[in-house]
């Protein structure tokens, strides 16, 4: 690996970490407060001010961070100290590294150097995502067990059962898509969605609905938040967490939201592609700026479009979270095993028949 590639990778990692932890995590904390408030005919948090400037409540995230940094880091008596400390880290890491294979742009040639806007162009990108997302279960289960608290343990148990069930269904919802694009690489899948009529959402919208349901269930957010059900289990698996460890669980949740949105964008919404405009046409439109600058402009537009789609899907997830009531625990399991799993198997069959008969032209 040359120096240039090393620098390029570090810049890309920095960009993704900045985007998820630096931008989306605090912004989503703000959006969660504000969107829910406006949706429910309220105003929402707007009192934290900095020399009289409230900035529509944006400073609440900052104030929260300052408050939580100085809070006591409490470990309950009888808890497994090492695992109790390790659990939030295990929860946060998989959600971050799953983003490594999600392309946030295409391939561009800038001043003779080829830039591929994905941290790791893995041939088995989709499999990698599922492998990593199953690791996230450990953080939750360990947190539930190590806290020496009945609520936590119950939350951890529920989380393990729920995440295990929905992982099966989630993997199967994407099989149809993999058959359609004939590739496991995220970069390939995105590249094949250059034409608007090959977008995943056009051909695979039932898979999108099922995938989003499974992804939200994996993320343990409402309506699938039985593991942390505040009305039943206090706060579920993170009952005994305080201070920055508590923040880490929340950050993990928010980053996972971003990852889910990124996955949906890459698999179903054509990644960085602008509808009806191919990459070549986009770069060609700015050809009067010279080949390098036009590629750069196309790259920036691509990343902007990706982030736009990401934000739209995040708003969709937030809307789901603030509209749906929580499922009962048996309903969650029933939905996972008896509804989504057979439906996704049926969808695989339909896609198979469609590809064989030529109704669904594979790009």
């Amino acid at each position, binding site marked *: 690996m040359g120096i240039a590639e090393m620098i390029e990778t570090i810049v890309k990692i920095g960009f993704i970490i900045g985007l998820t932890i630096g931008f989306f995590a605090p912004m989503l904390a703000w959006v969660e407060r504000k969107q829910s408030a*406006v949706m429910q*005919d*309220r*105003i929402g948090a707007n009192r934290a001010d900095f020399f009289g400037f409230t900035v529509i409540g944006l400073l609440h995230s900052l104030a929260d961070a300052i408050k939580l940094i100085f809070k006591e880091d409490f470990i309950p008596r009888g808890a497994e100290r090492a695992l109790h400390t390790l659990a939030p880290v295990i929860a946060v890491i998989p959600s971050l590294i799953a983003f490594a294979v999600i392309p946030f742009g295409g391939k561009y040639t800038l001043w003779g150097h080829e830039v591929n806007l994905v941290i790791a162009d893995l041939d088995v990108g989709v499999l990698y995502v599922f492998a990593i997302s199953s690791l996230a279960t450990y953080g939750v289960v360990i947190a539930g067990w190590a806290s020496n608290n009945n609520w936590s343990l119950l939350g951890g148990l529920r989380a393990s059962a729920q995440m295990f069930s929905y992982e099966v269904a989630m993997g199967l919802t994407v099989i149809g898509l993999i058959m359609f694009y004939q590739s496991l690489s995220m970069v390939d899948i995105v590249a094949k969605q250059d034409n608007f009529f090959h977008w995943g959402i056009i051909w695979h919208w039932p898979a999108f609905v099922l995938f989003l349901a499974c992804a939200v269930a994996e993320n343990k957010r409402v309506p699938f938040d039985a593991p942390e059900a505040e009305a039943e289990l206090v706060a579920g698996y993170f009952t005994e967490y305080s201070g920055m460890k508590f923040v880490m669980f929340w950050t993990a949740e928010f980053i996972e939201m971003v990852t889910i949105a990124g996955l949906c964008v890459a698999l179903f919404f054509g990644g960085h592609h602008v509808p009806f405009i191919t990459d070549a046409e986009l770069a060609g439109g700015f050809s009067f700026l010279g080949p390098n600058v036009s590629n750069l402009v196309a790259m920036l537009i691509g990343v902007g479009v990706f982030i736009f789609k990401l934000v739209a899907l995040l708003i969709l997830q937030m809307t*789901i979270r603030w*509209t749906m009531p929580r499922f009962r625990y048996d309903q969650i399991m029933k939905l996972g095993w008896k509804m989504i799993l057979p439906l996704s198997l049926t969808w695989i069959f339909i896609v198979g028949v469609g590809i064989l008969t030529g109704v669904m032209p594979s790009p």
Partner: protein
Amino acid sequence: MAITVKKVDRNVTMTLWERSYIPEMTRGMIITMKHFVVNLAGLALEVVGGKRHRKIMTIYYPEENPVIPPAYRGRPALVRAENGQEKCVACGLCEVACPPRCISIVGGERENGERYPVSYTLDGSRCIFCGLCEEACPKEAIVMSHDWKNLCEHDRSKMIYDKETLLYPERNLKKRLNVIREKYFNAKLYHKPSEKD
């Protein structure tokens, strides 16, 4: 009065369309999104235009004050007549009517033979803002004012109001006075015991 009961059918059988969850979920999300968009547009217009166009009823309290309706019962106040003297004649009816017994009056007589309260003490920490003193008063001398701010104290001894604190000029209490005239002296509104009761 008969209480109307809305009967809810708890054995609703849902159609297949409703049980398939996704359409009904989408409908719910459209409702919440509609609220979101309408309220957001209203908030944006408020920032630009300054006028309130939204369904949000929240009042930014210390900066804004709620609109007090005329029939509001705030802290009781003694009416100071035009001549500068209190209307109260120290008859003690309010003292008797007061359920938590927060009023204590020491009556006296002026040189011209009129009775007046030498001291009129109202314990704000005990007052329940029921308005019975106002109802009992034959002279319209005590009314519930629209005073609702800063009634709380850390020290209960600061909440015992003396006569000078309670005295309000009559023109400040016009709204409430009109209300009680309507309420207690208007034959139409006066509560007539019927056979039903």
